[in-house]
């Protein structure tokens, strides 16, 4: 049988999950009092509550089924444009995050050495007092800049930012430079917005996906849209060195040489400009810098690109012609995690320019409202104190183009280690696992070693919590409120579908408590979570009770005119960017050859699987149950040449680290590449399901920062392998 899930994986699993338990046996009898009060759950504890998923940043709408006061099933909310009644595999597994037997349900204070995992339970009073006093000591002794704050984007982020900017630190680490800086900065330089929205309507004819693995890195509605489009016969060209599940669905898979996506797109531009296939009306009216672009791309012929990309010139030529012929019903997708090579920023620029040249604006792409809202209220927001210290991540004085909001997390970490321009002494982390997510784990450990104090907010003892001094247990997304999230013409609610277990508390509560102890109460002017949301709703005249019942607040509809204005210095789409040029970077995309592995070494590829979210979900028993063992992919011919076989244990070595992992021999990868699933290799023994599974890509990743966008070049790591 060809079962993906062999009985072996179940047996392996039952050995890991001690005393394999059914969900039903482990659900504690808690019911959200609010949900009972608002009539969503009856006296017997049965009913349905609408809320918002948090298994990834797509944030689908969910309907939680409550039986006997316990959440027993999650379904997609048909009213939500991101879920349309569906949930992905992670969304389906979400209740297992909440009911994870490894949940931290009381504040913890470290008693042993860091990394020993010895903690004692503490009251919130004690844990918060200790955290605040340590933070105030650091501020008094070294200044507020000596305290680093980091968190991965979430709905309570605005209050996290109040904590750090109110405290006065400029040092803010987010996931962004490890993910999408290249894409966001390229869009800002070209379109003056972070990320245009994509339109998959019935007219769509042609899509180029540059590494956007939508069938595994699932965004429920967009994945469905792409699948529908393929079903309708839309041509999808997919560029990736690996035969992913998206490659399997695409019309055409091009196994491009890593680091050369830029050359491919420059050659597309060459054909479209050289053969006059662009939309000249659109270009004349709405763009600037065509001449500079035309002059630069003249040299980048498909014949030039062929030996670089290892894609035949005629294929590149044909795709350029097909794309232009399908335009404006054609879309070149930017991708999402675009932190691949130092030249990824220019790749992203080339993609945005490709779209602009064929005039697909307001056809397959349009301005995106983002997550902000002009109509929702908010608690009073005093101005922040001026942070006089330089940022440790070098933004903007070393990286003039990188937006402050994005920052460069890996540079921040590096300068904690170097102590330049000053030494950091404390680190406050919320909903993030930098121990796993930053490249070069060895250096991340050095950075943590420099700290006098580390506090982590999370729902489990993630790897960063494991080495922290204080762990503050957050309520899971099914147990808490977060601020409202506008999507389209609705603002969606996250509300507790069950009461928080143990002493877990919402981030809104934790940040407020800490803020008050730090003398920052003016930044936290809400009585409790419900009061926060009521202040958001106040200008709309909608009651919280109505929102709790429907799951969203209807926002006033604004008549949308097709918008042909861009928030760039010129007000047009900038094919040539004066901003880039002025600070010494190329104003139009130019070829920048990436480094290559030495003979015998491999590019280290990473990329998502559908059953995991970054570094946070590997301990979810349901996801673990239906996940493949994370193994190292190696091309079958190469394996044969090297005498390696499927299931062999191999030693993988990069410039900065070494791991042991089992081999998966497959024809589905280029011979010069190996692939690892990111997010495994956890060191926290507090993660009893994930501990010991797979190996960590972060151990191997070498730190390289793109000087323009600040993006970490995650694929610019080369490894050797040998039988272990």
């Amino acid at each position: 049988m060809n079962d993906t899930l062999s009985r072996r994986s179940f047996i392996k699993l039952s050995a890991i999950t001690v005393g394999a338990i059914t969900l039903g046996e482990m659900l504690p009898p808690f019911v959200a009092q609010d949900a009972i009060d608002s009539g969503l759950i009856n006296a017997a504890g049965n009913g349905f509550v609408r809320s918002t998923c948090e298994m990834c940043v797509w944030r689908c709408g969910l309907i939680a089924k409550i039986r006997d006061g316990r959440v027993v099933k999650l379904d997609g909310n048909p009213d939500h444009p991101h879920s349309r009644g569906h949930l992905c595999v992670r969304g389906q597994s979400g209740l297992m995050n909440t009911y994870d037997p490894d949940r931290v349900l009381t504040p913890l204070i470290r008693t042993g050495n860091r990394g020993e995992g010895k903690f004692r339970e503490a009251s919130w009073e004690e844990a918060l007092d200790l955290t605040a006093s340590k933070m105030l000591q650091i501020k008094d002794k070294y200044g507020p800049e000596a305290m680093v704050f980091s968190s991965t984007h979430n709905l309570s982020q605005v209050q996290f930012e109040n904590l750090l900017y109110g405290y006065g630190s400029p040092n803010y680490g987010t996931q962004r430079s490890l993910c999408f800086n290249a894409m966001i900065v390229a869009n800002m330089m070209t379109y003056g917005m972070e990320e245009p929205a994509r339109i998959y309507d019935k007219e769509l004819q042609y899509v180029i996906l540059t590494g956007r693995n939508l069938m595994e890195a699932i965004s429920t509605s967009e994945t469905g849209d792409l699948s529908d489009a393929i079903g309708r016969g839309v041509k999808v060209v997919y560029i990736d060195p690996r035969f992913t599940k998206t490659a399997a669905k695409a019309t055409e898979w091009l196994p491009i040489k890593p680091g050369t996506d830029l050359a491919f797109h420059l050659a597309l531009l060459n054909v479209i400009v050289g053969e006059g296939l662009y939309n000249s009306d659109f270009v004349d009216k709405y763009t600037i810098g065509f001449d500079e672009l035309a002059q630069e791309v003249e040299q980048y012929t498909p014949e030039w690109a062929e030996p670089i990309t290892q894609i035949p010139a005629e294929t590149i030529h044909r795709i350029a012609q097909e794309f232009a012929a399908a335009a404006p019903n054609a879309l070149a997708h930017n991708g999402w995690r675009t932190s691949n090579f130092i030249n990824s920023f220019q790749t992203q620029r080339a993609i945005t320019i490709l779209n602009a040249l064929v005039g697909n604006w307001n056809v397959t792409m349009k301005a995106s409202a983002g997550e902000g809202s002009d109509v929702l209220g908010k608690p009073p927001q005093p101005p922040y104190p001026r942070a006089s210290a330089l940022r440790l991540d070098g933004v903007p004085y070393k990286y003039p183009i990188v937006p402050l909001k994005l920052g460069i997390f890996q540079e921040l970490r590096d300068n904690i280690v170097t102590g330049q321009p000053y030494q950091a002494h404390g680190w406050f982390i919320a909903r993030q696992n930098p121990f796993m997510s930053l490249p070069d784990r060895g250096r991340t450990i050095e950075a943590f070693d420099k700290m006098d104090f580390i506090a982590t907010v999370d729902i489990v003892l993630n790897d960063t919590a494991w080495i922290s001094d204080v762990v503050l247990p957050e309520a899971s997304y099914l147990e808490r409120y977060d601020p409202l999230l506008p999507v389209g013409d609705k603002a969606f609610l996250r509300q507790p579908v069950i009461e928080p277990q143990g002493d877990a508390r919402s981030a809104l509560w934790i940040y407020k408590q800490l803020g008050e102890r730090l003398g920052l109460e003016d930044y936290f002017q809400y009585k409790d979570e419900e009061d926060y949301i009521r202040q958001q709703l106040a200008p709309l005249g909608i009651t919280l009770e109505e929102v709790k019942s429907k799951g969203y607040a209807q926002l006033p509809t604004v008549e949308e005119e097709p918008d042909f204005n861009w928030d760039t210095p010129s007000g047009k789409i900038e094919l040539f960017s004066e901003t880039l040029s002025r600070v010494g970077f190329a104003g139009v995309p130019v070829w920048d050859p990436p480094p290559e592995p030495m003979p015998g070494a491999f590019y280290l590829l990473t990329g998502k699987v559908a059953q995991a979210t970054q570094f946070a979900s590997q301990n979810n028993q349901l996801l673990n149950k239906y996940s493949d063992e994370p193994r190292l992919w190696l091309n079958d011919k190469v394996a044969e040449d090297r005498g390696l076989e499927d299931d062999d244990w191999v030693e993988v070595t990069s410039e900065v680290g070494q791991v042991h992992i089992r081999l998966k021999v497959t024809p589905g990868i280029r011979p010069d590449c190996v692939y690892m699933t990111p997010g495994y290799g956890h060191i926290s023994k507090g993660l009893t399901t994930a501990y010991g599974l797979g190996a960590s890509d972060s151990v191997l990743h070498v730190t390289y920062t793109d000087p323009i966008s600040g993006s970490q070049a995650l694929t610019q790591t080369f490894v050797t392998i040998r039988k272990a």
Partner: protein
Amino acid sequence: MSDHSAKPRYGFLIDASLCIDCRSCTVACSVENEVPMDSTRIWMKETGIIGEYPNLQRYTAPYHCMHCIDPSCVSACTVSALKRDEDGIVTYDEDLCIGCRYCMYACPFEVPNYEWDRPLPLVVKCDMCFARLQEGQQPACAATCPTAAIKFGKYEDMLEEAHRLINENPGKYVNHIYGEEENGGTATLYISPVPFEELGFPIAGTTSPAFSNRLVTEGTPLVAGSMLVGLSGVYLTIKHLKEEAEAERLRAEQGQTVGEEE
């Protein structure tokens, strides 16, 4: 006793061209039905990555109870724990099950799963999310599928849709609706761009062995008695062979597990 030839009321249509192997259906099923962590009612079948680099293909499809029109498992069940209800759903009653595992050996699709690690093991299989149907909801797997690879509805509509998709998309699918005739017909229907053997589907005959089984479980005591002896002999032989293979596999895996820890 249900009608052994009545067409089912409900049916699944599973399209391997749309399945992205995300496994949302598998988790949805496990949660909805509180399936133990070491067991499952639903698997992924796959071709694996086939072909020679760079000309590759990969297809997958979720796989669960076929809900046969004349189910072999029902006929093999001596205590009527397995039944086919009036809607054509093959249901399982754990209160009646004696754990004999005859159904596992009778099923040509290798569907009933067993809670091997339990002192009183039960059979685990799909019941079309019977409870959800009563609440007017789709089965959990179909409801959540992000690409609509699993469709659920009236059996007749599903069958018609399967024919339409094959007829209107020449060359896209193999000209075979798996389940239309397999084992005498099933409520779960599949269409696929590749032959079903390549997806790892069992090759099932077009008639159900349920008739001969019924002689054992429903026939006159005399006939049934003599058949039972014969059937038991066959059963014990198969059981022995399967258990040997299982033990062998376990030994191999034990070795691997030890290797992992070194």
